[in-house]
C-alpha cells in the first residue's frame, strides 16, 4: 500500500523533477565541472582538468578583480534596495490615498516603466545621460550656461549614480505593486479604531501599516536584492561596465554579471569565469538562506 503511494507520488512529481533537473541542476553541475578545467578559446573542445587553479587565480590577492567587483556590486545593492523601497512605498501610499483622483490613470502611468522591455528603457536612459546631446545636460545648460555639463557617464562616481537612477526607474514599480496590493488588504477598521484613540497619521503608518506590510515586503526585498545583484542589462547597455580609468582594473559600473559577461564572451575565459560563478552562487545561496531564516519566513511557512 505504502509502496504504491510512493510510486504514485513520484509519477505525479516526475515532470517537475525532470524539468527542475534539466533546467536547474544540470547547468549548475556542468558549471562546477567547467570551473575545474582550463576551457577557453584555445582549449574549447579539448580542455583538461586543472584542479583548483581557477579558484586560486580568482582569490589569490585582495586587490584581485573578484573583490573589487564583488564589493562594488554589494554597494550597488545596498544603495538601490532602500531607494526602491522608499519610492515604491511613497507611490503606493499616494495611490491608496482617498484624496487622489484618476487613480486608474496614475496606476497605469506608474507601472509603465516596469512594462517597457528593460533594454529599451536602458537605451533611452543612455541617451538622457549623454554628455553633449543628452536631455539631462540640455536641461542643465538652461540653468548653468551653454558650456556647462554634468559628467553623467564619464566620471566613475557619477556613472555609478546614473546606473542607480536608471535602475530605480525600472524597479520601483515592482515594489509599488506589491505594497499597493498589501495596503488594500489591511482592514479599514484598524485605522478607524486608531482614529478613535486619537492616533496621528504618522503613528498609524508606523504601528499599523508598516507591520502589516512586512510579510509582503520581505520576500519582495530578497527577490529584488538578488535581481539587483545580478544586474546585467542596465549597466551593460548604458556604460558597458565603464567608465574605465585603467586597462588593468574593472570599470566603475562593472558589476558581477557585467564582469562575467565580458570575461566569458569577450575574452572566452570559460573555466575562470565558471569558478567565479560558483563562488558567487555559494555566496548568494548563503545570503538568501540567511535572510529568509532571519526574517522568520522559512519557519513561518514550515508551521
Amino acid at each position: 500500500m505504502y509502496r504504491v503511494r510512493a510510486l504514485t507520488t513520484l509519477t505525479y512529481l516526475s515532470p517537475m523533477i525532470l524539468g527542475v533537473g534539466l533546467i536547474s541542476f544540470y547547468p549548475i553541475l556542468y558549471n562546477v565541472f567547467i570551473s575545474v578545467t582550463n576551457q577557453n578559446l584555445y582549449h574549447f573542445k579539448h580542455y583538461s582538468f586543472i584542479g583548483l587553479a581557477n579558484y586560486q587565480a580568482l582569490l589569490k590577492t585582495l586587490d584581485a578583480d573578484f573583490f573589487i567587483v564583488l564589493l562594488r556590486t554589494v554597494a550597488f545593492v545596498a544603495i538601490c534596495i532602500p531607494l526602491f523601497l522608499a519610492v515604491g512605498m511613497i507611490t503606493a501610499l499616494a495611490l491608496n490615498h482617498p484624496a487622489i483622483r484618476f487613480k486608474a490613470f496614475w496606476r497605469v502611468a506608474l507601472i509603465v516603466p516596469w512594462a517597457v522591455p528593460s533594454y529599451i528603457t536602458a537605451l533611452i536612459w543612455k541617451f538622457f545621460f549623454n554628455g553633449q546631446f543628452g536631455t539631462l545636460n540640455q536641461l542643465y545648460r538652461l540653468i548653468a550656461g551653454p558650456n556647462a555639463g554634468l559628467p553623467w557617464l564619464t566620471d566613475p562616481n557619477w556613472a555609478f549614480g546614473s546606473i542607480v537612477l536608471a535602475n530605480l526607474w525600472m524597479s520601483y514599480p515592482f515594489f509599488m505593486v506589491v505594497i499597493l496590493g498589501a495596503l488594500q488588504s489591511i482592514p479599514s477598521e484598524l485605522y478607524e479604531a486608531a482614529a478613535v484613540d486619537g492616533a496621528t497619521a504618522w503613528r498609524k503608518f508606523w504601528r499599523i501599516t508598516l507591520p502589516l506590510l512586512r510579510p509582503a515586503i520581505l520576500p519582495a526585498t530578497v527577490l529584488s536584492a538578488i535581481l539587483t545583484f545580478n544586474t546585467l542589462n542596465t549597466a551593460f547597455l548604458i556604460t558597458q561596465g565603464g567608465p574605465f580609468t585603467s586597462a588593468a582594473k574593472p570599470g566603475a559600473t562593472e558589476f558581477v554579471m557585467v564582469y562575467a559577461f565580458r570575461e566569458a564572451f569577450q575574452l572566452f575565459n570559460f573555466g575562470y569565469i565558471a569558478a567565479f560563478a560558483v563562488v558567487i552562487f555559494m555566496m548568494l545561496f548563503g545570503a538568501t538562506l540567511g535572510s529568509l531564516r532571519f526574517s522568520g519566513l522559512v519557519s513561518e511557512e514550515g508551521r
Partner: protein
Amino acid sequence: MLALLAMVAAACGGSSTTSTTLNRSGTITIWHGYEGTYLDSKKAIYDAYTKLYPNVTINLVHKPTLTDAVTAAAGASQGPDIIAWVDDQIGKWQKLEAIKPLDSYVDSSYMNAQFTKAAVDAATFDGKIYGMPEAVEAISLLYNKKLVNVADLPKTTDALVTFAKNYANSKPGNYGVVWNPKDAYFQAPWIYGSGGFYVKADGTVGLSTAGTKAGFNYVASFKGSMPAGVDYGIADTLFKEGKAAMIINGPWSVADYTKAGVDYGIATLPMFGTKPASPFVGVKTLMLGAYSTNPALAADIMKFFTNKENQTSMVQTTKEIPANKLALADPKVQAITDIAGFGAQVKNGVPLPNTPFMSALWDPVAKALEAVWTGKQSVDAALSDAQSAAEKNVAQLK
C-alpha cells in the same frame, strides 16, 4: 540576363574541380550581417543561383550579434553552412572549431587567379584556405566638399591637428575632423603608422613600444578639437549635419552620407613624416561552417558569389572594393569614385590581424584609450596597464 548568368555559371563550373560530380540540390543556410541596400544586392546573387539550380534552397539568416551567435552555436556543435563576416574572426573561429578549411574544394591556384594577394592572405590561416573573400574595406578620410577645399586637405598628421584646432576655434560648435577616439580599430592608422602594433601572431603584445606611445600621444593631441564625449554615433551625426568638415570612417558609411545630402570626397589619411597612416584592412569573407552537411555545394555557392561577373554587378550598388581582382580591374568598377578613393587608402593599410590573440587586445586597448581621452591616466601609465592586462589575457589563451 538569364542567358548571361547561365554562361557565367558554365564558365565557373568548368574551372571547378568538383563540378562533374557535384549534385546541386539541398538547403544551404547562410548567417550574415547584411542590411539595407547591401542585403538587396547580395540577395540578388543568391537568387540567381537558385534560379539556375531550382533544387537548391538558400536561407539567408540575419544575425544582429553574429559573432556571439557563432560562438554559442559552436559550443553546441552546431552552425550554418556559410558564415558571411570579416576575416579577423578566422583565427578565433578556427580555434572554436566553428569553421573548417575549404582546401578540398578550391586550391591556391584558383584563389591566386581570382583574388588580390591581400585578400588571399586574409582568407588563409595556418596555411589553409578558410574562406572566399568578397570585399575589402579600410577607413579613410572623408571630407564635406562644401566645407573644405581639396587644396586645403591636410597632407601631414601635424597639419591635421592644426586644421582641427583652427576650425574648432573659428566656428564654435563645429569641428574640423571627428572620429571615435576610444576604439582600437579606429586608432590603428596612428598606431601602425607611427611604427607601433597591437599583437603579433605569436602573441607578442606591443602596447608599451615607442611607436604605440607615439600613436596614443597623437590621438590625445585632438583633445579639445573634438567633442569630449565623441563616439562613433556622435561623429557620424556631426558629419551628416555638416557640423564636422571631415570624418574618418569606412566604405559602409558613405551610402548614408549620400542619403543625408552630404557632398563628400574621399582623401587618404595624412602622412607621419614619410610614413603613411596605416588603417586596418579587413576582408569580408564567406566562410565554410564546420557543421555544414553539404560543404561541396556551399563551396560552389561561394565560388558563384565571388566570381567576376557577380562581383562586378554587385559593387555597382554597394560601392564596395571587390576582393576579386578580375572584377576590380573592370573599367565599370574603376569608374566608381568611391572604389577608387577607398582603394587608394587600402594600399597604405595593414591587414586586420586574424590571430585569435587579437580578441585579447580589443578590450585593454579601448580601456587605455578611454583613460587617456578622459584624462584619468597619462599615456605612459595607460599603456603600461594595458600591456600587462593584454599579456595576462594572451597568457590565458595559450
